[in-house]
């Protein structure tokens, strides 16, 4: 199979600065992302992460970046009761399997790397003097500052109708990360007892954790919704296998609902938005 499913890094800058300055900072940021990719890509046989997985590189000799990411992975693995596990994920990763061999323990930290990389990119953008921008890598986003003096509005992709938006969230200095069924098999392995979700979006102040929570919670299935809802400062919007949308109570703070869907339209819209209910209500 050809790898046509490339992902995209998009930097959207709304600072009122000379375009050349903005472009220069964006270039540095993308260069930085490329460096990160060289270290962590499971698609590059010579990446540090693959050499580590094959035992050619000891954890001791790995770069500080790798240490940082592996530590984060371990933290989230423990916090998620093992749902987020870079070693188990590797067993199901087409990229990693190519690199594997007898007796090695490959690792697949991609579920953490994306958010971590976005976080680094945000730092580069800020140190370049930018305050108002979004960094979007493969659908995971950090939104800094404001979009033309208004909160950033981020669309959430419909899980099964990929060209549709099912909801819009707004905010400033916040992260939006989504895991969906269509990436299962890439780096998320489901435990057999899990009741699968179609997609799960995590919103919160930190993009590293938002990405990790989304990845872990997706692997946990329906149980993951409450798990994320229980994480302080993070909110969740999930679509179950039946197409029901569930969200944590605090998600309403971020959601921008179209007027015709937010009141009195339930009969007509028993779809994703029509059937949503606060998770707190769902528990009762």
């Amino acid at each position, binding site marked *: 199979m050809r790898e046509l499913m490339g992902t995209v890094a998009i930097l959207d800058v709304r600072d009122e600065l000379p375009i050349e300055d903005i472009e220069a900072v964006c270039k540095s940021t993308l260069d930085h992302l490329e460096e990160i990719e060289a270290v962590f890509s499971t698609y590059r046989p010579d990446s540090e992460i693959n050499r580590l997985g094959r035992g050619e590189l000891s954890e001791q000799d790995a770069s500080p970046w790798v240490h940082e990411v592996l530590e984060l992975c371990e933290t989230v693995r423990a916090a998620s009761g093992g749902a987020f596990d870079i070693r188990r994920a590797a067993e199901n990763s087409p990229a990693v399997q190519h690199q594997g061999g007898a007796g090695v323990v490959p690792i697949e930290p991609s579920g953490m790397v994306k958010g971590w990389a976005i976080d680094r990119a945000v730092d580069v953008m800020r140190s370049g003097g930018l305050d108002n921008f979004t960094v979007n890598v493969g*659908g995971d986003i950090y939104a800094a500052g404001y979009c033309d003096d208004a909160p950033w509005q981020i669309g959430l992709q419909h899980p099964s109708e990929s060209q549709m938006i099912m909801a819009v969230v707004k905010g400033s200095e916040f992260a939006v990360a*989504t895991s969906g069924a269509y990436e299962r098999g890439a780096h998320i392995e489901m435990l057999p007892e899990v009741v699968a979700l179609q997609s799960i979006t995590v919103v919160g102040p930190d993009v590293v954790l938002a990405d990790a929570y989304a990845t872990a919670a997706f692997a946990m299935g329906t149980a993951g919704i409450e798990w994320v809802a229980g994480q302080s400062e993070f909110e969740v919007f999930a679509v179950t296998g039946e197409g029901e949308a569930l969200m944590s109570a605090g998600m309403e703070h971020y959601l921008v609902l179209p007027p015709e869907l937010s009141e009195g339209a339930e009969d007509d819209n028993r779809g994703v938005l029509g059937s949503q209910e606060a998770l707190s209500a769902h528990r009762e």
Partner: protein
Amino acid sequence: MKRALLALVATVAGVLGIFNYNPNATSVELATADDVDGSVAVTAVDNAAASSVPARQSVTTTAPGQGATRTLKGDVTDNSYGDVQVVVEVSGNKIVKVDVPKYPTAGNSGTINSKAVPKLKAAALSAQSADVASVSGATYTSEAFKKSLQTALAQL
């Protein structure tokens, strides 16, 4: 007051082998706040070679002057499920309609749930005054939509 929006798009190989920066990335500068006549200035600084498919962007102005309705078409992007193109109708600087005229036709994306379409439009409509600046989704076929909507929005 000039608004500068810079969209750098980098295509990448590999689902998770993220961020392969393409030096030929599309770079679009635009200024809308000053354009009191409602026209839109779109300057393609580099080229559209970042996309593996030919860029087919177009801007149609149906009426001159303030409040003119423009139709912005995103790139036709293809993915393993088929082609996707998004069309955004803009009046002044507000999105008034988002349409997806070209549906994926192959693969296991299945039949389009027609009931869901108005919801997409409604969601986009509610965000009109501040743009849907970005779309969050899991990587994969989502990319095609995001990219396509993104390119349409970048013309605002």
